[in-house]
């Protein structure tokens, strides 16, 4: 596949840009934050995206999806990233949705995914148990009980966990603390007895939750993938989610960079525009080269998924390692080049900075993904 957008993808991107500019300027995200909105995004807007077919992009038609690829999804996600839209693409589509699509038996897919695609059902994937991304470090247990399982443990940073209708829980059915083997995935209703969800406030205004599971019973028909073999499924879900997240990040990079560039052209000090100072020009030029690299590796990763290439995992890690590092670079330079005004809450650039830092750590930072890439490359 080509590294550039097709005609149809360009049209989709332009439609999404108009939509988000109109309905979701950055102030929207700010007021949701300031008003401590209980949902953290707008359900009506999410349903509208469902009607437009955007939520269903990567799902097959049989479950209400549009049966398109990550090139198309990326075109929409990039525009979300530009305006810092807080809608639950990452949690519901990329993480929860993919877990069900790749791991659930057909009846369960048919039960859950159509309402996901329409925007009526929200999902979350609960995998993390501490700050650093380390997907094999799972202490939450699932013990056999009759025909089903009983879950016990605590999950953190569950994206949109506070509003999800169903949670996909990663729990240990066997093995030691860091083993790949012995993980299993379960679909649990958020309302189920023994589930306690507590919303946490994140630095970027995004929504995450801590989920406590105290003897939650779940039937064997609600297992995704193989018992004890959940890591393989999780790994595939993470590849897709990572590539989707990277597309969103690229949108945020573009907007952050453009705003900073404009500031260099507008702001005067010492009687001249600060953009005339070579110390800043060179850094801006370097940033642009990084932004171009990020675009390339993310497009390549999307193609790898859409063409079913066998290097998709390596591409996902290459994309996220780059995007994590670029997030750090562009976010940091944006604040620095805005000077004192960049430190104020009033100026929007700080919102971008915070979102970029959160995205940098979500699903693994540069260190994690270089490590994974090296492993995939045999060293």
């Amino acid at each position, binding site marked *: 596949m*080509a*590294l*550039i*957008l097709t005609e149809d993808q*360009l049209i989709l991107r332009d439609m999404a840009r108009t939509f988000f500019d109109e309905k979701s300027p950055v102030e929207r995200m700010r007021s949701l934050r300031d008003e401590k909105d209980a949902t953290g995004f707008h359900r009506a807007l999410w349903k509208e995206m469902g009607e437009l077919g955007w939520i269903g992009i990567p799902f097959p038609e049989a479950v209400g999806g549009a049966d398109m690829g990550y090139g198309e999804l990326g075109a929409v996600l990039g525009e979300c990233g530009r305006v810092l839209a807080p809608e639950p693409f990452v949690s519901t589509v990329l993480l929860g949705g993919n877990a069900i699509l790749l791991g659930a038996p057909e009846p369960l897919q048919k039960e859950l995914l159509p309402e996901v695609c329409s925007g009526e059902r929200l999902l979350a994937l609960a995998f993390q148990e501490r700050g650093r991304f380390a997907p094999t470090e799972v202490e939450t247990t699932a013990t056999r009980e009759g025909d089903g399982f009983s879950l016990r443990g605590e999950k953190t940073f569950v994206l949109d966990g506070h509003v999800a209708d169903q949670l996909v829980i990663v729990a240990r059915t066997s093995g030691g603390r860091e083993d790949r083997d012995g993980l299993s995935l379960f679909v649990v209703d958020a309302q189920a007895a023994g589930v306690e969800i507590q919303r946490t406030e994140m630095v970027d205004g995004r929504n995450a939750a801590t989920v406590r599971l105290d003897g939650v019973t779940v039937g064997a028909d609600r297992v995704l993938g193989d018992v004890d073999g959940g890591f393989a499924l999780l790994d595939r879900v993470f590849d897709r989610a990572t590539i989707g997240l990277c597309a969103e990040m690229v949108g945020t990079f573009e907007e952050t960079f453009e705003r900073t*560039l404009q500031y*260099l*052209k507008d702001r005067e000090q010492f009687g001249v*525009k600060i*953009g*005339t100072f*070579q110390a800043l*020009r*060179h850094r*801006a*030029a*370097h940033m*642009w*080269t990084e932004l*171009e*690299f990020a*675009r*390339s*590796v993310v*497009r*390549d990763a999307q193609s790898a998924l859409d063409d079913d290439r066998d290097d998709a995992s390596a591409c996902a890690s*290459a994309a996220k*390692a*780059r995007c994590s590092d670029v997030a750090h670079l562009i976010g940091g330079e944006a604040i620095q080049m805005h000077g004192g005004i960049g430190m104020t809450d009033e100026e929007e650039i700080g919102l971008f900075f915070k979102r970029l830092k959160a995205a940098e750590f979500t699903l693994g930072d540069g*260190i994690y993904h*270089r*490590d994974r*890439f*090296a*492993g995939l*490359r*045999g*060293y």
Partner: protein
Amino acid sequence: MSESLDAFRQEARAWIQESLPEELKSGPRRGAPKEALDRWFQALTGKGWLTPDWPTEYGGGGLDRKQTQVVKQELKKARAPVPPASAFGTRMLGPTLLEFGTEEQKLEFLPQISRHEVQWCQGYSEPGAGSDLASLQTRAVREGDEYVITGQKIWTTGADKADWIFCLVRTDPDAAKHDGISFVLFPMHQPGVKVSPLTLIDGNADFSQVFFDGARAKVAHLIGPENGGWTVAKRLLQHERTTDGGSEGGITGAMKETFVDLVKREVGLRDGVLADATLRQRTAAQEMEANALRLTMRRAGEEARAGQSTRDIGSLGKYRWANMVKAEQDLAMQALGAQGLGWEGPGFEAVELQRTKAWLTTRSDSIWGGTNEVQLNVIAKRVLEIPE
């Protein structure tokens, strides 16, 4: 990929396998028998594949863009050598002549270049004019249908072996500095041209200072208008800065193993994982860097052809490529440790000595063809359009 292109690839591959002498298919590049090299270069240029995309009337292969790409890929895959120092003619002067030369000039020079019969050198830099190239002082004064040239050039790669030079000269000393420059071609073997070699830190003596004292160029060999050479010069620099984003640049040919192979060999694996965690991170980052550059150059080409973008990617390519090849050799050196510090003789394997030299050589990649700082200036001004 289309079927016909696939078939063309098969053909190209078969032709290379058939034409590339056995001695050049394996083993170290250096010290390959001259006779075999000559035979191969003759086959290559005979087919027009040193310049596959040039029209056949100028000695090229007459191939379209996609076929050209296939030929380049297949040559690279076969690790087939190209004539040393051919780049000045094939990659820089040739494309510039195709754009700015008259029909007579094209017919006179292009076929020689495509057959690699003439070695060229680039007379741009002067002791007082490097990054600030337009301040060059070498003078050319018209006398009948000739120019008489006086002045000095420096860093001229391959001047001691060159037959001809493409040279920037000042034809109007009173004009503003960009407006008095002309672009001329003239032979190096003539009275009034003196070449004095310079040795670089890598021990390489491919470089020279060149002194002109009454050297002569035909007015018929002026490219573009008199005093209008700056536009021609800049376009040639764009060609010079174009890298294909390939890893390790021009030095791959001399070395069989990639930097990843080297790091693995030197550092070793423990439980399948590189024994040094920091070097493992850096090696992964380095591999990703090479990929990102390659993909970016490819994407830029696709965008340009699809009419989706007109931004100039040349400076990005040169800047990131220079950083990348330097970092690869730095990493190789780090993995070699003191074994990378040899200069010659016993105690060091040939491959180690090659790495040491390559590490030194790559220092120049962020200098020639416009330094990294100059590339960043170009990006800030032309791509980002930040007013100066």
